[in-house]
């Protein structure tokens, strides 16, 4: 009997967790590790002497210290506001600090890796500080070109996909063209596009639209074609017109498939964007990459790569966000 009471008490204690205790007892170990790791890496960067001229070491150390201080602030706030879990989520932030520290160590401090190819973290920071105007402009240009081409390609692909899926006559004529031209990589059109279009920008829009349009067309078509016939029967007995059948039955039913096409098209458009900017378009992140490589400015290249990764990942996140809003009726949706 006493053993049982003890066990219940222990279980209650565990269930209550750190929340029921004094502030200093509520310290989450994972939060403490985040603070410690960032402060330690800041110290390592600041006080270990550099192997030569490696970039804005002080600024890097300051950035790391700011992250550490912010983490400390959150941790302390957590002690007093009694939040139920570790807010910082620990492991990933600790790992980030450690990877950054290791990178700093093998490049800037110990000089183990050949320097021009393996840039130091502080040299990237220096690029962002010195060249932010050009980088910003290039990012904007890339975004403009990508969004224009993508929207044109997605809209045309969507319309043609619905048309092919809906009308047997249109399908009869468009299908062979789609089968023949569609699988051709958009980049194969590159020489022709720069020759045929009045500006390299419009050629870029054409290529990106082409890369986006094909998957969007095929998946919209397949989505429309695979709508359960019973859905049409229901609408027809209720007095629906053909326009209603297309707009209110076929298209909503095809949307999950359309979004797969939009996702694939977005991936394809990134590839074409970079190639187009490297080959002919005189602005944008792809151009910047090429330009930096020409000057053997490796830190600039890495800086542009990181920006590009942020841009692409941001756009994919935006697309998934849109999908989650529009297809909230679907069960078991993959969360991005």
């Amino acid at each position: 009997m006493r053993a049982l009471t003890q066990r219940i008490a222990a279980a209650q204690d565990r269930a209550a967790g750190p929340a029921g205790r004094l502030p200093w007892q509520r310290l989450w170990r994972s939060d403490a590790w985040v603070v410690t790791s960032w402060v330690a890496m800041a110290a390592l960067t600041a006080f270990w002497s550099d192997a030569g001229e490696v970039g804005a070491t002080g600024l890097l150390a300051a950035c790391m210290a700011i992250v550490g201080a912010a983490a400390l602030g959150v941790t302390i706030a957590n002690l007093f506001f009694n939040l139920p879990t570790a807010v910082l989520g620990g492991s990933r932030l600790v790992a980030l600090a450690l990877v950054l520290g290791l990178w700093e160590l093998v490049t800037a401090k110990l000089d183990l890796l050949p320097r021009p190819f393996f840039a130091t973290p502080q040299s990237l920071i220096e690029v962002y500080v010195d060249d932010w105007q050009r980088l910003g402009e290039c990012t904007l240009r890339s975004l403009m070109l990508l969004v224009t081409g993508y929207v044109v390609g997605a809209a045309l692909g969507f319309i043609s996909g619905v048309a092919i899926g809906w009308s047997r006559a249109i399908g009869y004529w468009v299908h062979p063209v789609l089968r023949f031209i569609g699988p051709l990589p958009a980049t194969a059109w590159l020489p022709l596009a720069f020759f045929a279009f009045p500006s390299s920008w419009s050629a870029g829009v054409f290529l990106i639209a082409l890369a986006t349009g094909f998957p969007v067309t095929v998946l919209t078509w397949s989505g429309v074609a695979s709508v359960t016939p019973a859905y049409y029967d229901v609408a027809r007995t209720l007095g629906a017109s053909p326009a209603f059948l297309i707009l209110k039955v076929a298209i909503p039913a095809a949307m999950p498939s359309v979004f797969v096409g939009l996702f694939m098209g977005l991936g394809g458009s990134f590839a074409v964007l970079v190639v187009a900017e490297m080959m002919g378009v005189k602005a944008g992140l792809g151009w910047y990459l090429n330009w930096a490589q020409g000057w053997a400015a490796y830190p600039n290249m890495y800086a542009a790569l990181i920006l590009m990764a942020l841009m692409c990942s941001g756009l994919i996140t935006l697309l998934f966000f849109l999908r989650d809003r529009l297809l909230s009726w679907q069960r078991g949706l993959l969360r991005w």
Partner: protein
Amino acid sequence: MEPVRLIKVAHQFELDGRPLSVLDSIDLAVGPGEFVALWGPSGCGKTTLLRLIAGLERPRAGRIVVGEREISSPDPSRILVFQDPTLYPWRTVRQNAALGLEARGLLRSQSYRIDNALRQVGLDGFDNAYPHQLSGGMAQRTALARALVNEPSVMLLDEPLANLDSLTRIEMQAELSDLWHRERFTTFLVTHDVDEALYLAGRILVLSCRPARILEEIAIDLPYPRHRGSAEFAALRQRVLAGVGLQVRW
């Protein structure tokens, strides 16, 4: 409301290039407000008969007439309710029920009909639920509401309760009977459940297997509400089953 008449209706499908006869010379007259059950083995062409009356397909031979007009296309005055509720998964219960009004541009002016229909089938309060959140019975109720919104004069019910569990089915058979008594739409119920036909219908048509012909016509003049345990009910059940030679096996 007008009577529905089928005059020497025959229909066939193409199967591997060969004609497959599904309906053979069906003659039938159903008065306004009558409840007729089409009873017979599965896959014998009962569903096809309903699709023809709905106007989703044209018969190969014969005529189907409502009043004096021959049926040539679907019309919201004749609504088909399927075995599967076939709700649109991207629409809420209310939006599904509103489909008929929306298709005819009446959504603004007549939205009170949606409230009425949802109340009739006991779904008020579920307006914003999505089909994947509904039980089988609730989904079929939504499909019924979607039909009722159009205030149809003819209801074509294609085994609407066949996919429900037996308890829900008994419950919904009673509800369907009440609904018919309130609204008095002419009803064609396709079913292979003898008790369902006997419980609901005023007349049972026993159909033969493919090509379907009317084997026998049995009038059920038991008063409503009916009880499945009564002696008359049991006698009628035997008679219907005898139509397909199953009276002993049952």
